[in-house]
Each structure stands twice: as C-alpha cells, then as structure tokens.
C-alpha cells in the first residue's frame, strides 16, 4: 500500500499525449511480480482451460508487446470482465484496464465487422439503445421475445442463447414514473444527490429505482435524475470502445456539471458505479472524469457513510413473510469497490430478514457474457457454486445489487431476486 500504489497510476501517463486515447499499458506490467493470485481468482480460468488467465492476458501480453505488434491473442474474448483480478492483485497491476484495452484492439483490428459475433456483441452491448423501442411496446416486446421462434432465430442467427428468458420490459419506465410524479418530492440545498439509474432499472426493474428515490427522500435528500446513457460496462466487455467512449463522454459531462454544483452521484447498480469510478478514469481523460469518479457512490454505501443507517435499521423491521432468509450474492463489481460485505452487515441489524452470504464465487453471467451461445455453458459452470449455496438457504428469495447477477440467480435457482434498496424501502419507508 505504498503511496505510489494508492494513487492509482495517473491515467494521463497511460494516454497518448495527442489523442488522449489510452495507448500503451506496458508500464502497467511494472507492478506485476508474477504471484498468479489473479489466476487463482479468475472464474473463467477455473472452468475453461481455453482461457489462460488474467496474468497472461494482462501484464504478460502487454509486456511482450512491441509498438508495431498488433496481434492480440483471441482468448481475450473469453474474459468476462468480472474484474475480480483487479480486486485481488496484491500489487495494483491495472489488469482490467489492460484487458479492456487489449479487447478493444482485438475487436478493432482483428475481428471482422461483418462477423456474426461482432454484430451480436454490438447489439448486446448497445442494449440501452434498443431498450427505448422495446419499452414503448413492452407487452408486444415481451410477447415476441418469449416466442420460441424468436429464441430459435436468436440462437441460430445471432448466437444469443435460447436457454435464457429475456428480461421483461416494465409497462412504465422509471423515468416515465419520475416525470409523471413531477420529479423530486424533497428540496434540500444541503443534501443533494444525482441519480445514475442506468438502463436496466429504468426499463426493466423500475421498482429498484423507485425504492432508491423513496429511501433517499426519507433521509431528506434532494434527488435529480438527469438524462444519461448506458454506463458503458457491456461495451467495455465486448471491446466496443467507440460506443463506450461516446456514452462515457456524455455521462461524464452531465454528471461533472452536477458535481460542480454540489451533487454527489448515486448508483443503484454496482456495475454502473464501477464504470463511473474505475473504468472511466482508467480509460478516459475528459474534463471532469476524475471529479465524477471521486464523487460517485453506491446507494447503501453513501447512506452508511453519511447517515446512521445501522441505527435506523436496528429500530425497524420488514415483514418476515416477504423477506426472511435472503440468499445474498455479492456481485463481482461490488466486490471490486469493497462493497461485498456491506448489505449483509447492514441488513443483519434489521428484524424480519436474515441475509445469508452465499459465498464469494462469481455468478457467471457477467453482463452480456452469459447471453452468448458459446459462453452459456461456461457461464452456468461458473455459476454452479453460487447456485449450490443458494439452494442451501431455506427461503426461495435471493438478493443482489446487480441486475444481470439477479437474472443468473433466478435462472439457476428459480428464486425471486430482490435488491437491498427494496428491503430498505420496506423497512424505512413503507412502515
């Protein structure tokens, strides 16, 4: 934990002086001392021997590079971007940054733009662009997506697995609800937060976003919900760096202006907060990038730092029939921000629920990864350990902060999956 390590490598050091693009990550290999800890924590390497692990993909591959070398090993496409390697590396090697950049290079220069894989990945990673259309006709979309013929076409033509049920689109999006409601109910110059809801809680699980709003307002926060784009997580994971860059630029400009006015940025999805906090500053140097990163928080984390959340919860309760024993899975991206222990720790104080951590394995879905036909089996193998531990929990309810982990948990066990904010909502607002 030297000073050098604590201050993550200054991103400008790793960016081309003229284009601002990240360009050369070889110096990132300086921190690797070959302990292989990253490999031991990689959920893909554990089940897929085609994947040589994060150490190879990151510091080794980069260190071996010469400027004119452009062949990135294709195995980088098997990385699910769970970023657990970042979380465990004892030496601050910028592993996921190396993977993201290598994947971007691979997609850019070695993958055919006409290939089925490229088109499929582009569609999957640009879910946020397609969702508004679907959300306009949610019932029709849900009907069509549920048809076996659609699944057949997806599987055969697109390479999207037919094993999974597409997430249902809500009949009313969160932003529609917010507008209809007339925006914020609380005005407070002292306590103001800007909500980065992300696409998923907008289109598919608006109840999570609504819970966030109610809980924060119950603590007296003024909330603003600015126009925003996808955080970029699925784009990084698929090497769609141009798409990601555009989305990130928009988000950074939007939220930097709000931070400037005294707002903190709150996310209810841990992959979104991950992107704003870590991936943006690692990959971009737009004005305000660092400011947004330093002022972004996950919702529970924020309340925990600024309010006596534990005390409030100790004096509250939730209906045991609805919550009870909850099989909690910490998303890898939450783990990466140091948030993996927080939900269980906090909610343990609450009557009517008993969260049980189902262990530190990866759910295996990693956003778009588990949707790809060729990755589906790997995804389910990775998830096996989590499913087993979930089955050990008495109730058939699970809990997690990440929408795609929730999909996988539901897919693997049939459990209903809740978000911690919904529990807080029930404890602190409904009562």
């Amino acid at each position: 934990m030297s000073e050098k390590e604590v201050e993550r490598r200054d991103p400008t050091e790793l960016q081309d002086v003229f284009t601002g693009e990240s360009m050369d990550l070889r110096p990132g290999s300086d921190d690797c001392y070959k302990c292989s800890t990253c490999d031991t924590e990689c959920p893909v390497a554990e089940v897929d021997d085609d994947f040589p692990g994060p150490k190879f993909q990151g510091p080794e591959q980069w260190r071996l590079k010469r400027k004119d070398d452009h062949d990135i090993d294709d195995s980088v496409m098997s990385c699910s971007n769970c970023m657990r390697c970042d979380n465990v590396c004892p030496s601050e090697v910028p592993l996921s940054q190396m993977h993201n950049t290598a994947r971007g290079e691979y997609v850019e220069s070695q993958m055919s733009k006409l290939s089925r894989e490229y088109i499929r990945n582009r569609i999957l990673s640009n879910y946020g662009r397609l969702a508004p259309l679907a959300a306009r006709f949610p019932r029709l979309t849900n009907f069509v997506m549920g048809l076996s013929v659609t699944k057949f076409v997806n599987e055969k033509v697109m390479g999207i697995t037919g094993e999974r049920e597409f997430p249902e689109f809500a009949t009313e999006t969160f932003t529609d609800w917010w507008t209809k409601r007339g925006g914020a109910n609380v005005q407070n110059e002292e306590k103001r937060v800007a909500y980065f809801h992300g696409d998923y809680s907008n289109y598919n699980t608006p109840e999570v976003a609504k819970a966030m709003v109610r809980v924060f307002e119950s603590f007296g926060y003024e909330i603003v919900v600015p126009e925003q784009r996808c955080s970029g997580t699925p784009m990084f994971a698929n090497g769609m760096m141009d798409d990601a860059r555009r989305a990130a630029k928009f988000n950074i400009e939007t939220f930097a202006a709000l931070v400037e006015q005294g707002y903190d940025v709150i996310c209810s999805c841990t992959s979104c907060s991950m992107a704003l906090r870590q991936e943006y500053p690692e990959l971009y140097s737009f004005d305000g990038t660092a400011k947004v990163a330093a002022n972004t928080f996950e919702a529970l984390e924020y309340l925990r730092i600024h309010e006596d959340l534990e005390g409030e919860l100790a004096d509250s309760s939730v209906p045991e029939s609805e919550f009870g024993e909850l099989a909690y899975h910490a998303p890898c991206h939450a783990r990466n921000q140091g948030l993996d222990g927080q939900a269980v720790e906090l909610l343990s104080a609450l009557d009517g629920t008993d969260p049980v951590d189902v262990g530190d394995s990866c759910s295996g879905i990693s956003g778009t990864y588990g949707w790809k036909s060729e990755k589906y089996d790997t995804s389910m193998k990775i998830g096996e350990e989590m499913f087993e531990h979930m089955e050990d929990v008495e109730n058939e309810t699970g809990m997690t902060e990440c929408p795609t982990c929730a999909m996988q948990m539901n897919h693997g066990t049939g459990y209903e999956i809740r978000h911690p904010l919904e529990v807080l909502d029930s404890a602190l607002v409904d009562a």
Partner: protein
Amino acid sequence: MAIDAEVLVVGGGSTGTGIARDLAMRGVDVTLVEKGNLTHGTTGRMHGLLHSGGRYAVSDQASATECIEENRILRDIASHCVEMTGGQFVQLEGDDDDYFEEKLRGCRECGIPAEVLTAKEAREQEPYLTEDVKRAIAVPDGAIDPFRLCVANAADAEIHGARIETHAEVTDVLVDGTDVVGVEVRHESGPGKRNHAKSGTTEKIRAEYVVNASGAWAGQLGEMAGVDIEVRPSKGVMVVMNCRQVDTVVNHCRPKGDADIIVPHETTAILGTTDEEVDDPENYPEEEWEVDMMIDELSKLVPILRDSRTIRSFWGVRPLYEPPGTGTTDPTDITRDFFLLDHEERDDLTGLTSIVGGKFTTYRAMAEQISDHVCEQLGVRGRCRTADEPLPGSDDFTVLRDYMDDFGIRSPIGRRSVQRLGSRADEVLMTDGPNPVLCECEAVTRAEIGDAIDQSGTDLNAVRIRTRASMGNCQGGICCHRMANELHPKHDEPTVRDALDELFQERWKGERHALWGEQLSQAALNYALHATTMNRDAPDEDAIDFAAFDGGQHGD
C-alpha cells in the same frame, strides 16, 4: 609437432566468433576457446545498440561511415538478431543549437540517413518523451541482441567445421623461441559441452597461428606471450528497465557525456552509460551512484523512467586501446577505432596477432580484416563471405504464422519465440509433447529451452542467453528451477542442482543493483519462494536425525 588447428582464436565475444565464422567459411580449420560462456566479456555486457553511426558523426567520421555500412549488412545477414527500431537524437530546450546542426551535417557527410523531427513529431513517435523536447534527428539506429548474434556466429562456424570450446580458459601461451605455437587451456568440465558433473582437465592446443580476440583481457594474454599490450579498460554501467518505455533508440543530442542513451532491447529498455577507466577488467567497483545517475539523468529525457521499475544493472568493460605514447587521460577521449597488432611486426614474435579496441556494430568488418591478415600469413586464398551469407536463423522467413495452429502456443508467445528463433522456428517449436511456457516473463517454451540445452550442456546461463528465459521481471524467481528441471533425467540430480544454483546466483548478482520498490518486493518474494516453500537454502541435509522429528500419527 602435431597441429590441432590451423588457427586458434582466443575469445568468444563478437570479434572472436566473427573471426571463427569468417575463417571457417574460407575453409580454414579453426578452434575457438572462451573462458566463460560465449559473450562472457564485453559483448554480453553492452546495451544492444546497432549503431547507425550517428553517435560518431561529429567526433569520429571514419567510424560513423563504417557503422552505417555494417548496420546495413547486419540487417541482412542477422535479421533475427536485429530490430530496426530507428533512433532519435533529441535536443532539449537549453541544449546547444550548434551541436545539433553539426550532428545533422555530420550524419549527412557520412551517408547516414538523417531527418529533422519537430518536437511534436518526436513525441508522436515516442509519447513518453519529455515536453522539453525542442527537436530531434531521426537516424536508422537499431537494437541488436549480442547473445543471439554471437551464438549464431559460433553455430555457423561449427557448421563450417570449427571447434568451439567455452569454459576453456587460457592458462598459458605456448611459445617456441620467438614463435607462438598454441595455448594451454583449462577446461572447466573437460572438453565439449559444459557438464557440471565432469571435472576439469587441461589441454595444450597447438596451432599455426593464434588470434588474440580477448578484448579487455588482451593485455593479460599478451603477458603470457611476453608482449606488452596497453589495453585501457573502461567500465560503463547499464540499467535495465522492466519494460520498454521507448520503442526507438533515444539519444540525448549533446557532446559526449554520461547517461545519454536509452535502447529498447527485447522486452526491456536499457539505460546507459558511464565511462570510467579501471585497472582490472574483471574486478572493479559497481557503484550506487552510477545507477542513480542513469535514472536521474535519463528521466530528464523520458520522465516516466523516474518511477519505473528497474530490474537489474550490469557493467561492461570497453577494450579501449591507444598506441603507446598517445597519453590520453580521459577515457572518453580514447578512440573507438580498432587496432590490429601483428606481433611479428611489433614485437618480433611470430604466429600471434591481437585485436584491440573497436565497436560491436563493426565486429564483422573487424573480423574480415583480421581474417584477411591471418589468411595472408597462412597463404590461404579464401574470399570473405560473411557479408553475404545469412547467419543460421536469419534466412528468409515470414513471421505471419498462426501460432496456435502451427505450434500450439498463444500468439504473443509465438510472436516472441519466432522473433528469437527466426528461420529456426519450425525446427525448434514443432514438437509432439505438450509445450508449456516455462519462463512467463519472456514467453519461452519447453521446446525452446530444450533446444538451447542441446547446444549448451548443463550451462543454464548459456541457455538463458540463447532464450532470454529468466531475464524478465521476476529475474528467474519463478522459472530458474523450471529451466533446471529440463536437464533431468539426462543429467543427474546433483548436476542439476549445481546448474540451478549457478543460474540463481548469477541472476541475483545483477538484481542486487535494483533492490528498492517493486524489485525489492520481487526479490523478497523470490527469496521466500526458494528459501521457504522449496527450502533451497537448507543447510547440510545429510546431518538430519529423522527420528528426532514428528513421524505423524498414521496407524495410531
């Protein structure tokens, strides 16, 4: 008296192996002896620069011209040892304008392609250059692997019938009256490939003609023959960075000075250097200030160097020479030119010629001149062919391979292996059994280690210089023992252990000069792994009283 060889060459550096190859190709029966590994002396301790000549374009235009000519030849005949990185002479704000102009003019006068880059162009090419760059001159400098080059020269000499003996130290020069008739050598493990298990022997090797190509050691050999050779050894430090901060050779464009060059070398960047006269080419102080100076000075050119990881440092000794009576005091003023000392002309001693001074880049031309001279003495009428025939590994070869399909290895590993092996790649990498990577830092597979062992016997340092295994950031902590494992079962366990210890100690020797920050952490990890998990530092295992220890509870 029986003659063992027509010509005996002393010294397995670039000059010696170059001469051996040249003569062997002309049909001469050559034996080369080297006290250590190939490249043991100065050749293995240089920064790997293939000069464009730009460096000498002001001070020594004859050398500069020769450099650019040889630079072109080596790109052809040693393509798998050369990486044409290009080079820059960088002028910083505050550096002398006149010198810059003089350098540019000098390059053009010597036929060195030179182009002025604006600050922006220079930094576009090398983004880590400081913002203080004023402008730069682009020249065709390159990087060259001296190990691979010497090994290839020696291998080709052997193909042409030469005998190459490493670990064969000359203990005496045999003189019959005023005629040198051979040398006596001590083979560390008998003649042939090195084998730690074999004990040493001595051998008298008789030859019609002896060539003293022992570089900085030339004076010592001369002494054995009773002649005086005024070598002025001068040491220089080189600091090895963990990765390449630059992809072109970066020179500071100013009149001669210490710490003015960064050479991208394989996976690393090498900072150099100093110029300090020493008494003994083998025993001289290796000092902290020299390392610090490289980092402090060169981070003015490339600021990221200041906080970058250094993995080791090494020192080389230049075999400088000046004719008696020149009287230069500052070693940086001593000429880099080479001298052919025919001891018959000079000392009335026949059968011996020494070669001193000179530069690595022009080794081939030097070897050619010496070989011409020797052939003249012997009455051999062979023509030099070393400028035309590629070295083994440097035949026409395309690196566009599907490494996974062809060799079963990942593309970055395949790319690096093929860069090292050149046209020998198929021969070495096409194997039946599993071919795992043994050295992860440098991407060296079992097949490549095996090939190097075939060439080197039990000498793992010789394997190292052929493959770069153990030369990456862990400095062998993770792979030394894996390399040693490959010697077994062909060699028995005590031999393997000796070979491993020797490599491990050699790695430590250089790593000591980089022990702070990340590399100290690495050293502590290496130490823990080898001393704790493997207990390799265990003292006297034979004395253990097993009965005094816990025998477990089985069967209770």
